[in-house]
């Protein structure tokens, strides 16, 4: 009797949560299905998730129109995101290793200064950064997006914690065998902390891919623009072509959603461990 009642409650909760969950993803369902509909059908059949008049013309409009080089923006964003990840993979892990496993005077003080920087809202730095980018001649290049992203204090902190948790005995044993720090970093710490490093790469991918403010402020050349700014330009330029708009937004979201479903575990663990910023 009791278990039957419990089961009923569980089903009821499931239904409620499922409705809320579907409400959360309805905009995405609408978007994807609309991208395969003729523009005229988009608003007249918002609940029809399987298009009746299936078409690929929207994607054709997206890539073959004389005003916007959507593919170029897409490609720029792929290159920018890729370089950001590479740089972070190298620099952040090495830095975290330095703070976690090597003793040197002033280490804790420097680390504290970095931690304090976590509280600085990025809005306050947008004007000075503009001036600095200009001085370094990286304004209007993707380096103005890549280099600041590489200074990600959150992940230096997160990875330092992970590296510290690796038992000292392991690196001690490697030392006795004559290994230097570079070898310990490459052969022991890096492979052992792959989960945390993957978490960093995933979130960095999402943030770089989705960044809007950076390209909006620092990139003025339309051919060097990123997809976030591009999709807004495209949508306001093709104001009446709803189908093409939805095809564009779908393509913007696909890589991130794909990454999410492939690596859900790292996303969820990254957050539930309390290590990821808002």
């Amino acid at each position: 009797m009791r278990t039957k009642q419990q089961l009923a409650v569980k089903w009821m909760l499931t239904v409620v949560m499922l409705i809320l969950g579907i409400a959360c993803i309805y905009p995405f369902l609408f978007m994807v299905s609309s991208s395969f509909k003729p523009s005229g059908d988009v608003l007249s059949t918002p609940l029809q998730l399987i298009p009746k008049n299936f078409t690929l013309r929207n994607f054709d409009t997206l890539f073959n129109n004389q005003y916007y080089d959507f593919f170029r923006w897409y490609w720029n964003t792929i290159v920018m995101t890729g370089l950001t990840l590479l740089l972070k993979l190298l620099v952040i892990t090495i830095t975290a290793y330095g703070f976690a496993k090597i003793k040197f005077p002033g280490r804790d003080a420097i680390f504290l200064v970095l931690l304090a920087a976590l509280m600085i809202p990025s809005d306050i730095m947008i004007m000075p950064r503009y001036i600095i980018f200009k001085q370094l001649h990286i304004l209007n290049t993707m380096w103005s997006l890549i280099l600041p992203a590489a200074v990600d204090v959150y992940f230096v902190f997160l990875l330092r914690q992970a590296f510290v948790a690796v038992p000292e005995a392991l690196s001690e044993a490697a030392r006795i065998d004559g290994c230097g720090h570079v070898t310990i970093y490459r052969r022991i710490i890096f492979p052992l902390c792959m989960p945390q490093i993957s978490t960093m790469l995933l979130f960095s991918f999402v943030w770089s891919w989705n960044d809007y403010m950076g390209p909006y402020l620092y990139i003025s050349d339309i051919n060097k623009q990123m997809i976030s700014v591009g999709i807004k330009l495209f949508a306001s330029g093709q104001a009446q072509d709803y189908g093409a708009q939805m095809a564009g937004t779908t393509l913007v979201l696909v890589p991130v959603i794909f990454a999410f479903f492939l690596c859900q575990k790292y996303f969820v663990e990254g957050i539930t461990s309390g290590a990821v910023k808002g």
Partner: protein
Amino acid sequence: MARTAVKAKHKMTRTERMEAATGYLFITPYLIAFVIFTGIPFLSAFALSFTNVKFISKLEGLQFVGLRNFIRFFSSAEALNALWRSCIYSLIYVPVIMVLSFVLAYLLNKGVFWAKGIRSMVFLPYISNMVAVAVVFQLLLGPRGPFYLLQKFFGAEEPVIPLLNQTWALPTVVLIAVWKGMGLNFLTYLGALQGVDVSLVEAASIDGANKWQQIKNVVIPAVAPTTFFLTISSIITSLQNFTVIQSLTDGGPGQATTVMSVNIVNTAFVKYETSYASAQALVMFAIVMVITLIQWRGQKKWADQ
């Protein structure tokens, strides 16, 4: 004997020195980048606020002007209105996102079928591209869109187009921001709730506490540190809302959604008043600091009880 001891000691310091050198080598590339892209910008933001820089790139003729930019801020109706809208934004955003994400996490944690699938659904908006999502919402909430038709269906004579409406634009933008940001708070709460000792809840239930009492007296106190952390991070997120607003409404209609972050960018990059914009950003920074400090002290009291 004494000589070897001295030698050993000397050798120790040399390896230590080597160790230290390696340490600096490991962190130097990062530190250089940090100083250039965070350290200097942060400090120059203060310097800029007290000068008269215009046209961002022209630093010649730079002059110290004292508090003039701040006085201008506090006597400008436009800036104060933006500040006020930011307050309204945060005052809606923070409570709504906190309550919603807690309730969703609590319900999911009670045990449902397909928990993982539902969890992903709630989380998905968090990682999506705000600008792309904004294009979708402009359609969904736009003229002839589903929301328009829904209002018609329920007999509204003049259906509202929320993002183009003076009164409704701001609350609508906030709710979309909540939808977008909720995944993070939701997952964090879920992690915290999974750490709550089940025996405590059971004990309360045996003592005759009803569901609401169990939640209020056992569960909510148990996740208080998480609530504290999420409240602060949500307040900060709520002030860094440039992308949300710029992509949905561009600060409009009129000035209806021109909050601080939008006003700062417009002042700097449209009106080219770099120093004045910097002063505004500094005011916002001060607000964030004060909130953090108040919360921090509150947290201490809270934890002591």
